[in-house]
């Protein structure tokens, strides 16, 4: 225990030493952190927010909290020079205080779409002074995505994304959500129609939507007690998905983050959706 803490501390020192020659960067937003790593500048990062969980290389870095509610002094205490901030980072007063303290705060486009991803990669590249690397990564992502979505899917299953936080709170995603977007990109159809955002799930509405597959995040499915618990929720068993026991679970940030792993996530989901 003690040794591992020392190792972690050493790791921080090593990272700090490597980064000392370059800009000290703080990333606010999981997809932004991934992009910085993908552009080969992970060694410049000195702190990340709570939503940054990939790649695992930054596990020893200090965390500055939830990106919408960061603390000005907490962030300044890691002595950053550049903050790559999710569009919704806040509170706004804190962002202003950071800028007043001479920190360069760059707002990175954050929409959960393919266009959003490409804009994000380019913006991160520019902010890091690696515009060319950013443009190259965006171009290669665009090519990968085109290659994946070029082949028509062999089937268009109706999918419901279930956002679970414990068995008591199940929500499904309507249009305009990251889940809706990735279902479409993977060749599926969002079986939930008629509203945007996330809404609590009712048994009847789920039966009416009658999805072929239920999509969930790994942590969400774990929070309700695994697939077996899912099938015992009223209404779920009465759907096509329930009848054929078809549930797909993928990591939150991988599935919904719209980071540089998006092509891989789409390919994997497409594969999983194919009967």
């Amino acid at each position, binding site marked *: 225990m003690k040794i591992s803490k020392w190792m972690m501390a050493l790791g921080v020192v090593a990272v700090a030493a490597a980064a000392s020659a370059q800009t000290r960067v703080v990333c606010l937003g999981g997809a932004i952190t991934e992009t910085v790593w993908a552009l080969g500048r992970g060694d410049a990062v000195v702190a990340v927010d709570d939503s940054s969980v990939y790649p695992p290389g930054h596990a020893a870095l200090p965390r500055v909290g939830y990106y*919408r*509610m960061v603390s*000005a002094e907490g962030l300044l205490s890691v002595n950053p020079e550049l903050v790559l901030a999710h569009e919704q980072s806040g509170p706004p*007063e804190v962002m202003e205080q950071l800028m007043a303290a001479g920190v360069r705060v760059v707002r990175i486009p954050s929409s959960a779409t393919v266009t959003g991803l490409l804009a994000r990669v380019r913006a991160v590249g520019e902010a890091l002074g690696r515009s060319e690397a950013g443009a190259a990564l965006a171009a290669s992502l665009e090519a990968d995505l085109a290659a994946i979505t070029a082949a028509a899917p062999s089937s268009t299953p109706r999918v419901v994304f279930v956002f679970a936080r414990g068995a008591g709170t199940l929500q499904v995603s309507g249009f305009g959500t990251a889940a809706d977007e990735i279902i479409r990109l993977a060749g599926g159809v969002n079986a939930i129609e008629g509203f945007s955002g996330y809404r609590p799930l009712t048994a009847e509405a789920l039966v009416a939507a009658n999805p072929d597959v239920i999509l969930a995040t790994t942590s969400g499915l774990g929070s309700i007690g695994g697939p077996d618990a899912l099938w015992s929720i009223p209404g779920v068993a009465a759907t096509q998905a329930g009848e054929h026991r078809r549930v797909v679970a993928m990591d939150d940030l991988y599935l919904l983050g719209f980071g540089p792993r998006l092509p891989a996530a789409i390919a994997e989901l497409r594969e999983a959706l194919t009967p």
Partner: protein
Amino acid sequence: MKSAALALTTPAPAIIHRRHRLRPRGWWLVPVLSVALLAVLVAALSIGAMPIAPAAVVTALVNAVGIETAWAVSEREALVIAHIRAPRAIMGALAGAALAIGGVLMQALFRNPLADPALVGVSSGAAVAAATVTVIGSTFFADLGWSSPFVLPAAAFVGGWLTVLLTLRLARTAGHTRIEQVLLAGIAINALAGAAIGLLMLIADDAQLREVAFWSFGSLGRADWTSIAWLAVALLPALALYRLVAPWLNALLLGEGEAALLGVPVERIKRGAIIVTCLAVGATVAFTGLIGFVGLVAPHIVRLLAGPDHRVLLPAAGLLGAVLLPLADLFARTVAAPVELPIGLVTALLGAPFFLFLLLRERREVPR
């Protein structure tokens, strides 16, 4: 009238000599708490997530007032002191004072030591307005070109006020505001507000939901000098009127009928106290979100130490609130640095057990 009311504070003949006392029981609390307030403010300025040497703190403060010194302080350190720590400390002191004084006034009006400004709907009204702005208002106000960070506090303040006025109107019959009616109307209004917030949360997206939740935990993280100026103005009537109102509040403890017979303008006191309270607490809630327990704990601690005389209770509870809240904030922003805990969570987490401890200790000392 004032001297007549003063006499009422101790109506029992056995202790009538107290009437002639220049200083009411427990008066020493006021200077002691003033010193404590100073100490807490110094601590709040000196301690934080960013390690800053005491000399740099002093230099930054002196520089901020416009005096040049020979000592060096980095620009970033100066900013942290003058624009992050100082506004938070002062906002915390003002908010703590407002919540505690609001608590005392409401407890006097309702003649119940558990009363709270939230009873008349000021917090729930503000919460509804804040949630409305967060969930459906942000796009609407942005369309009007009002994307200022003051939209939310302004809306919360107005929302709190409208709710209080509605409660008072509902409780008013034939020119009389009946306090039990205020309580009942307040309960109904609070329930309605709860339903409205529930509805808003239903249509909110994930991010907005988080925003509403964070607001309801309370935070001093948004403090800046402009919001402090507004809060100070809102707190002014409470500070200006307390000497005048305190003896009347003492008389009110006897009961409304008795107080009225003794010449206390009960009707004016009741409505005035509610309005002064809601001005101070409404502005506090608007800038800091919901911070619980200070309005209950601060008056109680003072009552345990100094008794129920409002001439001491009002200023001492105000000062104690002003000590406790920056202290809680100091804890909130350092214990998990660089992450910050919501201050409402800290006041409840530390305040509730401490409060229970005090109650238990008091029970042991005064066996009945």
